[in-house]
């Protein structure tokens, strides 16, 4: 498969989360992700967007390659997300970082010049 990119600008309002989930499902299906892998990626983006607030717009970029989907979410002005992702999770607490550690293969935070952040998520297809 050639590397392809899909860019999407979507409202952060919860009403539109199913639309984003559907699009992620369609993208992940193109790289033959299993049901659970699709669900994981959808959950990762969903939780991230929930932390980003409920108003305004958000940009999502999906880079699709052989057996993987790399997602960029942002720029986001919620700097607390960066803190939540960069600090170790306290024992027993279910933090955004712990959720992402479980459901995606890697994640990171890029800092934009204007002080906002972009979150990177990478999900790989499991063994067939």
């Amino acid at each position, binding site marked *: 498969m050639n590397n392809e990119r899909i860019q999407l600008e979507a409202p952060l309002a919860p009403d539109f989360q*199913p639309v984003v*989930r*559907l699009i992620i*499902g*369609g993208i*992940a*299906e193109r790289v*033959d*992700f*299993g*049901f*659970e*892998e*699709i*669900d994981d990626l959808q*959950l990762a983006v*969903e*939780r991230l967007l*929930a*932390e980003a607030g409920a108003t305004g717009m958000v940009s999502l970029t999906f880079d699709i390659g052989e057996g993987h989907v790399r997602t960029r979410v942002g720029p986001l002005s919620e700097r607390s997300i960066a803190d939540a992702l960069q600090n170790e999770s306290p*024992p*027993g*607490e*279910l933090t955004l970082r*712990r*959720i992402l550690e*479980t459901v995606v293969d890697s994640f990171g935070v890029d800092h934009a010049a204007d002080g906002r952040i972009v979150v990177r998520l990478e999900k790989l297809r*499991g*063994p*067939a």
Partner: protein
Amino acid sequence: MKAVSRKAVGSERAREQDRELLRRYHQDGDTSAREALIERHLPLVRSLARRYAGRGEALEDIEQVGAIGLIKAIDRFELERDVSLATYATPNVVGEIKRHFRDKGWAIRVPRALQELNASMSGAIERLTVKLSRSPSIAEIADELETTPEQVLEALEVGSAYSTVSLSGGPAGDEDLDPLETIGAEDEGFQRSEDRAALAPALLRLPPREREILRMRFEEGLPQTQIAQRVGLSQMHVSRLIRKSLAEMREQLT
């Protein structure tokens, strides 16, 4: 009259057999007696499950959920109780089924064809997971159900729609129930999570079953398929409960 008497005698004999099996299980720890009790009362579960058929959920899923209620009833039964196991188990089975529907209540009006596709998807995913020894792809699910990947995705999405209103509200369809079935039973399962003092308050407000599912997923790192096996639910149902629980926790923090 004779037929009625014979039925009554048969019913009394069945009740005595149940009590003997319950005694063997609870006093002697005989797990084969527990299995026999489950087997004997599965027809009751099927009968109750059928009352909830045609509501957009596969009958086999409803039976599976009802069986969990039966097992809980058998485990909780106190031998001193002067009540038959069938009478005691009925509200447990119905309660479990109703909770399942509450968890899943459709938040939006969903076309019947998609509801039906969603209902058949759970079984298809379970079958394919066993057959392939991995989570099936959307294309494989579509092949199994003789539909398109786009339809599968859409049906999955409408299936994942849940209503926070219906979760906090009363159970649907109470008008169908006799008073006995509306008697609730406290959920004593999944007590392990109760003891985890370190858990955040928002997590502690979740029902024990949901807490345990989150613990298995995010602490043990178990995949949904294994969690589904452990708690006796379908993978799709586990997925929904995880999403719902995380959303509820987030709401409590805001």
